[in-house]
């Protein structure tokens, strides 16, 4: 039973998402209806490129939506966006075709799919509250007037029929609604696969490069930190041993050094481990880790974490370090009284923003924490923007690709 209702809720979720993209598609179609004729007399031409961008981003949103429900649609576009040549690009024309079909079919399907369960709940519960309505204004969802108990019972029963229909038909309707996207938004079968291969290769190479950069960073941290400390332990322990043989009075100070070096080695190792994967991230996930950092912040911090979905661990770690570093910096230098942190996933990008109301003037010195964050983010093929004019405010924005 719970599986059936689970399916029904999932279908409802899909239908609502489809309704959203259908509304976007409708708005875009409306835009084209204005721009298209305007092109015929010439004045619409400058609007063609922006409209193409909008069309593509709506189509990409639908691709991402379908991907979330396990119907992965590979984008037909190469990783780098071609500026020209859309007239001969079949993918663009297929996007436009999808725009028309989805706004004409996906919209009504979404409305029907969502209205059905609402009608069901309303009518099924009708017998409970119909007598509270003013005399003469009682009726079923379909607007049929009902004034007597037998009629009311019939409406209640019809409610269960609506619910049954929406449970049984939810999934087929949702599938029907996503059909145009599945058909039209994936690359045409005749399209050369080389671009897709190039795209996948680029993504994979990026992932490997990020991995290599991370390994180098860890290797460096271990070599320069913990290993040197441990070598100091060895040298100092040797010195203590020699002192024991020759000059027992000096054993104490030498052992103090041994202990100091060993403690430093532990601290270094702990630092390296934290820099690989902070324990809190492993225990509580990104949302939990961020709220812990925000709670520890010296400056009051508004944290908003949106839908994150499943993120690769390395992306989570980078996002976490970005926020932790930004909050530390703000606490030290910004003189802000308020911080705002937002993290949310937009399709295949995790966006993290940190903003304060402080005095600004933050900049990346070589070796500073900010430069480190930039390196980490760029190793993930992400973007890092820092705006911090004198007088403030400081705003940091990080975007991390998180296709999984």
């Amino acid at each position, binding site marked *: 039973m719970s599986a059936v209702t689970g399916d029904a809720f999932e279908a409802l979720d899909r239908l609502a998402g489809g309704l959203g993209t259908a509304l976007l598609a409708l708005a875009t179609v409306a835009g084209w209806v204005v721009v298209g004729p305007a092109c015929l007399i010439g004045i619409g031409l400058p609007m063609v490129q922006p409209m193409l961008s909008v069309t593509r981003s709506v189509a990409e949103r639908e691709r991402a939506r379908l991907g979330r429900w396990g119907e992965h649609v590979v984008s037909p576009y190469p990783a780098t966006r071609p500026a020209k040549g859309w007239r001969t690009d079949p993918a663009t024309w297929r996007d436009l075709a999808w725009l028309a079909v989805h706004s004409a079919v996906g919209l009504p399907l979404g409305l029907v799919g969502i209205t059905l369960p609402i009608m069901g709940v309303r009518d099924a519960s009708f017998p409970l509250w119909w007598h509270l309505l003013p005399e003469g204004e009682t009726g079923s969802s379909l607007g049929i007037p009902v004034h007597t108990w037998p009629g009311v019972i019939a409406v209640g029963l019809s409610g269960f029929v609506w619910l049954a229909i929406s449970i049984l038909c939810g999934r087929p309707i949702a599938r029907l609604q996503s059909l145009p996207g599945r058909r039209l938004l994936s690359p045409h079968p005749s399209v050369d696969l080389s671009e897709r291969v190039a795209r996948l290769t680029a993504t994979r190479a990026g992932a490997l490069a990020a991995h290599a950069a991370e390994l180098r960073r860890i290797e460096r941290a271990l070599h320069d930190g913990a290993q*040197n400390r441990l070598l100091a332990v060895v*040298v100092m322990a*040797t010195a203590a041993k020699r002192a024991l043989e020759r000059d027992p009075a000096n054993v104490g100070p030498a052992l103090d*050094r041994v202990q100091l*070096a060993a403690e430093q080695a532990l601290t270094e190792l702990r630092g390296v481990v934290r820099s690989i994967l902070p324990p809190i991230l492993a225990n509580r996930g990104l949302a939990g880790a961020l709220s812990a950092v925000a709670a520890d912040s010296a400056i009051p911090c508004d944290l908003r974490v949106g839908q994150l979905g499943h993120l690769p661990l390395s992306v989570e770690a980078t996002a976490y370090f970005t926020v932790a570093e930004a909050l530390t910096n703000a606490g030290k230098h910004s003189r802000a009284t308020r911080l705002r942190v937002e993290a949310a996933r937009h399709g295949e990008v995790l966006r993290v923003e940190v903003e304060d109301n402080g005095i600004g003037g933050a900049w990346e010195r070589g070796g500073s924490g900010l430069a480190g964050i930039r390196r980490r983010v760029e190793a993930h093929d992400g973007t890092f923007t820092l705006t911090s004019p004198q007088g403030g405010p400081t705003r940091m924005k990080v975007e991390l690709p998180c296709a999984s």
Partner: protein
Amino acid sequence: MRIVIAEDDTLLREGLVMLLGGEGFEVVAAVSNPQEFLAAVAWHSPDVAVVDVRMPPTHTDEGIQAAVEARRSHPGLAVLVLSAYVEQAFATELLAGGARGLGYLLKERVGQFKEFLDALKRVAAGGVAIDPEVVAQLFTRRRGPLDRLTVREREVLALLAEGLGNIVIAERLQITEGTVHKHISSIFGKLELAPTERVSRRVIAVLRYLEG
């Protein structure tokens, strides 16, 4: 014996000073970067320099560069390079200027203090001291005239490279000194080192070995 130490890690540097000072060596300077090291060598003309590989500014091979530079400006300066890890290229780069009075050891060898002191004294006296770890890596990689050596001869050559004398080699391999001598002659023969070069043949054999 007068020593200059170049090591950028404070604790390690102090440890080395404490250790070597305690053994009666005269540590005339302990510095933390290549410039100060070269200045100290020029000023003190030490008998031996102990140099860390990774030093500022980039922490890659500044120590090697400084050691090569110091040996160029002060021919005959004995240098013992201490490294946190095995890097064969460093050993080869150092040896390019000749192997006399040269050592390349992993830092943790300091822990086997007696052997470390022996190596340091050997280097100061113009001998060689190559870390067994470096030697082991060379065995797994090199191809060439060394392939003609028997397993036993390789063992002897490896110990030669560490800078050990015939008696110690015989002890280590639990064979007689005469047998060691026979192996060494055979090595010289296979590496085609003529008897006229006898004085430095041990060093040349080691060089052959290191350079492949």
